[in-house]
């Protein structure tokens, strides 16, 4: 249960492969997506969605708290890198007892995400997997995965 499959085959899971969409990272289809102005004042609403989905997917309360915090970290790291007037987009896919989250913002060429920060360490501690998505020159993202402990 703690071993994520290397390949994902069902509809909602392939949607979490950010390389798959023809629209690049901007248009990564997931069953649930939240789009907000890339403004720190709107991050609380995004992390509330993460917590709500985890609770409904029957994650235990610690895991709900961890995912809320991890999504907060991801958004807090990305929002300052967003292009003026850009959107923060967070997609959520729930499957096989885990939640995948893909958060991203539109960036200019030189934006880079620091992984030597306390925030990044917290983020990796709280999740089962965390990856920077930097293949798309126009968008920078973070892919998080959190497993449910209870089966």
């Amino acid at each position, binding site marked *: 249960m703690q071993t994520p499959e290397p390949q994902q085959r069902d509809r909602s899971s392939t949607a979490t492969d950010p390389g798959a969409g023809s629209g690049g990272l901007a248009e990564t289809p997931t069953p649930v997506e939240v789009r907000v102005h890339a*403004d720190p004042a709107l*991050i609380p609403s995004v992390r509330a969605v993460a917590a709500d989905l985890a609770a409904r997917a029957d994650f235990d309360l610690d895991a709900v708290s961890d995912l809320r*915090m991890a999504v907060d970290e991801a958004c807090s790291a990305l929002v300052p890198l967003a292009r003026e007037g850009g959107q923060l987009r967070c997609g959520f896919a729930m499957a096989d007892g885990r939640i995948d989250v893909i958060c991203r913002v539109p960036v200019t060429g030189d934006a880079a995400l620091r992984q030597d920060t*306390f*925030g990044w360490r917290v983020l990796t501690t*709280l999740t089962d997997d965390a990856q920077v998505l930097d293949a798309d020159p126009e968008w920078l993202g973070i892919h998080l995965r959190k497993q449910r402990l209870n089966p």
Partner: protein
Amino acid sequence: MATDDDLAAEDPLGVDVQRSNGASVIRLAGEIDMLTTPALRAKVNEELQGKPTVLVLDMLSVEFLGSSGLALLVEALDESRNRDVALRLVANSRPVSRPLQATGLTDLFALYPSVEAALAG
């Protein structure tokens, strides 16, 4: 954030300071995140500069604690040691205890279940 005026109409973090007998108690209510940590840092530093014997952070009504808030707590701990102030946290609910526990910081702090217990030491 000036752009989304109504969204941030209410300050999402309440900070209330009480001083007596050389002890300062900062009561926090709401969410400690990227948005609210800077103002809290200023308040904590102000209290530390007053060199109280004890600085209590009452976090019973905190609903969210993000990494910026955790980083502030770690900073405040170092600074309190430099200034010989006893820093004590009051926290007993998941929004505070889980972030401390999940990041392995619980043991660093002197944790109390109530302000009275923290003041008694």
